[in-house]
């Protein structure tokens, strides 16, 4: 059992508390989900259960935290480690050994278990996590999902009573993320482990959890079973609310009451069946969402393409082509998403657009210029590139200096720079972070700063490699809205993402890559609707009601239909 009483915590040298008056009791065997916008104190709270806070980070703390009978503030972190296991975001940074077996043994070795116990525990754990086939593999050669499973195994081998996971899937692709989450659910269900899971994306776990704790600004603002917590509209807090729940909240605002808040698509079909079955469409709406790809292209084809791939092939190693005969034209004003499995060549394709990679066969033409004739830095004036992890590039002491560095790269005159920096800070609402160390900013703000420094040259093309990874809902919306406005000024946006809900909302056109080849290049509605895997939740709901337009993808579109019927 975890008991937290009047916990308040200040990080070293901070005037704002990171946690304020926290009171909770978590019973043995509970599956608790902690969510909230970035900077709300989720990770801080979880770290106070293991004693990493305050022992590792220092700072001011008051109140009491008891974990499995131990007073956390008095015990050493390492003693608590026997009772509480913690898994962190980045699997890479929590593995220390060369192969899987040794990694699982590592914690047990530290606790001085005899060899025969270690051997037995390794066998058990390999089976429990179902990674026996990986046992001799070297850690370096595992995929991200496999690494995270090994990390979980190595903690599980120590037989903890509580397992805390801090956004364990944020660095993983959707398939591995789902596997890891299913595994966590199984550990709770079959082994009775108390699970405390911190997650941004709720749609994949919400049906498994007993309890959701929502935090904001260091306080617990909601605490209860998922259906109860989400019976009110919480969208203003800035967390990702699954679309099937959001539609119920929106209906409530229209005075249509949905009795049972659904947690899965299946439940939503039942909860919304009367409303949707009785929905009679205006005839104008029947064809509202239908448009063919050639009709769409006609609008754009007047202008020459901004980006053109002509029979492009590329391989990192001989005989293993990562891109195969890619032909692609992207026009002014398009918002195009590129989807596909990990390793399908998405990032390789993107890197061809700004010349980080040059085609080995074929040509890439950007705004009429062959990429092989320009350096990356020269192309950077036309192509802005945003990477998944913005913090990796920062090294200056303040955000302001970081922006100045970007401008100097583009050879702006020293006299112009202060004015331009002001403009960027203002435009992206970053003025209050002017003197902050960039790595202390949340991922959303870091990504805005990265975007600001890329947009200063007004590039015609913006290329983004999973930029919204790790952002909360509010940050993601602001970021994507900005991009959407930018492309309306005659620029094009090319986005690689796993997030179908964002594609459904913002994109026009989707390109599906598989094993280095373009499988489909079509409008988003033709690809995302009635698909087995990438359909957004609302589309999967609508598929059960055949009289509704089957191309509906988002909750806004469905609400629009319902509103129009009412009038």
């Amino acid at each position, binding site marked *: 059992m975890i008991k937290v009483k009047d916990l308040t915590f200040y990080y070293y040298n901070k005037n704002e508390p990171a946690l304020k008056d926290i009171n909770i009791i978590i019973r043995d065997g509970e599956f608790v989900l902690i969510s909230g916008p970035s900077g709300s104190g989720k990770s801080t709270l979880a770290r106070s259960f293991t004693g990493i806070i305050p022992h590792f980070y220092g700072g001011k703390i008051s109140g009491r935290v008891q974990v499995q009978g131990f007073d956390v503030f008095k015990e050493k972190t*390492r003693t608590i480690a026997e009772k509480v296991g913690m898994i962190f975001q980045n699997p890479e940074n929590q593995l220390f*050994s060369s192969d899987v077996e040794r990694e699982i043994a590592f914690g*047990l070795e530290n*606790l*001085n278990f005899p060899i025969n116990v270690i051997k037995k525990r*390794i066998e058990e754990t390999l089976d429990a996590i179902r990674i026996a086939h990986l046992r001799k593999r070297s850690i370096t050669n595992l995929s991200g999902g496999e690494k995270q499973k090994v990390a979980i195994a190595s*903690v599980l081998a120590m037989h903890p009573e509580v397992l805390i996971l801090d956004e364990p899937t944020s660095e993983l692709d959707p398939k591995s993320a789902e596997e890891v989450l299913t595994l966590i659910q199984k550990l709770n269900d079959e082994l009775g482990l108390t699970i405390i899971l911190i997650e941004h994306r709720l749609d994949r776990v919400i049906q498994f959890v007993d309890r959701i704790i929502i935090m904001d600004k260091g306080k617990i603002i909601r605490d209860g079973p998922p259906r109860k917590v989400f019976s009110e509209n919480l969208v203003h807090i800035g967390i990702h609310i699954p679309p099937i729940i959001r539609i119920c909240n929106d209906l409530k605002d229209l005075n249509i009451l949905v009795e049972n808040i659904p947690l899965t698509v299946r439940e939503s079909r039942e909860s919304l069946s009367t409303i949707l079955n009785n929905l009679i469409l205006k005839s104008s709406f029947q064809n509202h969402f239908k448009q063919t790809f050639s009709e769409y292209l006609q609008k754009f084809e007047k202008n020459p393409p901004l980006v053109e791939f002509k029979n492009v092939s590329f391989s990192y190693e001989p005989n293993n082509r990562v891109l195969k005969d890619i032909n692609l034209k992207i026009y002014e004003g398009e918002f195009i998403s590129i989807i596909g499995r990990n390793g399908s060549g998405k990032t390789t394709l993107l890197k061809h657009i700004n010349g980080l990679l040059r085609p080995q066969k074929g040509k890439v033409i950007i705004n009429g210029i062959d990429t092989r004739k320009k350096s990356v830095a020269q192309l950077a004036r036309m192509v802005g590139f945003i990477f998944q992890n913005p913090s*990796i590039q920062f*090294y200056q002491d303040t955000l302001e200096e970081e922006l100045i560095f*970007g401008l100097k790269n583009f050879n702006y005159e020293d006299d112009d720079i202060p004015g331009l920096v002001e403009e960027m800070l203002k435009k992206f609402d970053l003025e209050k972070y002017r003197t902050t160390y960039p790595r202390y900013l949340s991922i959303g703000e870091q990504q805005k700063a990265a975007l600001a420094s890329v947009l200063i040259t007004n590039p015609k093309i913006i290329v983004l490699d999973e930029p919204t990874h790790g952002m909360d809902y509010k940050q993601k919306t602001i970021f994507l809205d900005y991009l959407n406005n930018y492309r309306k000024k005659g620029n094009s946006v090319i986005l690689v993402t796993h997030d179908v809900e964002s594609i459904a909302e913002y994109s026009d056109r989707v390109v599906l890559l598989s094993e280095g080849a373009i499988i489909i290049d079509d409008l988003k509605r033709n690809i995302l609707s009635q698909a087995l895997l990438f359909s957004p939740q609302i589309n999967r709901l609508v598929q059960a009601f055949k009289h509704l337009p089957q191309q509906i993808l988002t909750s806004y579109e469905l609400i629009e239909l319902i509103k129009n019927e009412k009038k």
Partner: protein
Amino acid sequence: MARSIKKITPFLKLALFLGFFIFLFNIILNNEGQTVLAILPLNIPLFGHIYITIEVIIYSLIAISQLLLVIIAFSLINALINPDELMKTFLKMKMPYLMTFLVTSSLRFFPLLMKDLDQISDVQKSRGLEIDKGNIYSRIKNRIKIILPLLANSLERSIQVSEALESRGFGLKKKRTYYKHLTISKLDALIIFFLLFFFGLLICFRFIGYGYYQIFPKFTTISISITDIFLILFIIISNIIFLLLLKLRSKMI
């Protein structure tokens, strides 16, 4: 085997690159030796005329081969030895655990560092940084703009790593078990004995007077006696036996 060779090729390339400069600088700056092959018509201030002598050429070739040898030896350690095995060996030699952990974990995180380096240079290039343009001074300055974020990144990583170590009970107990003990088999003992024996033998020969070659001021032709031929044969045969023993060991594991 082929994989090990692939692993050491970058180091070999580096060695040859350095070797080229050793050769060049020796030719230009080293005017010793009496067998002059050519005199370059240049007159460089401070150095005077450049004499190219056979002695200098031989001297720099020997220097290059010595460099190659050292680099191959170290890159072989890197390519062939499993860091965990290395740790177990250190422990066997009664090194403190913390020290050995430091060494082996840095081997584990080194590839990540290289990956970060690639990524950062991609990002900075995409932000308009011309890495390979300009004179040497500005090139070095641009590299710093990649190295500094790398340092900041590694610092951040080290905090995360130590958090994870804390929660795995690292250093909790004074005593610690070691899964997978290192055992020294008879074959291992034989190999070690062989190595030490051979090493001792080489040192003895050196003391007797083998292995010296006087280059400066004037090179002499080498005369090879029958004992020399026996010695060379002995070295080659023992090397082959040693390799066979190693092969046998790798098959047994």
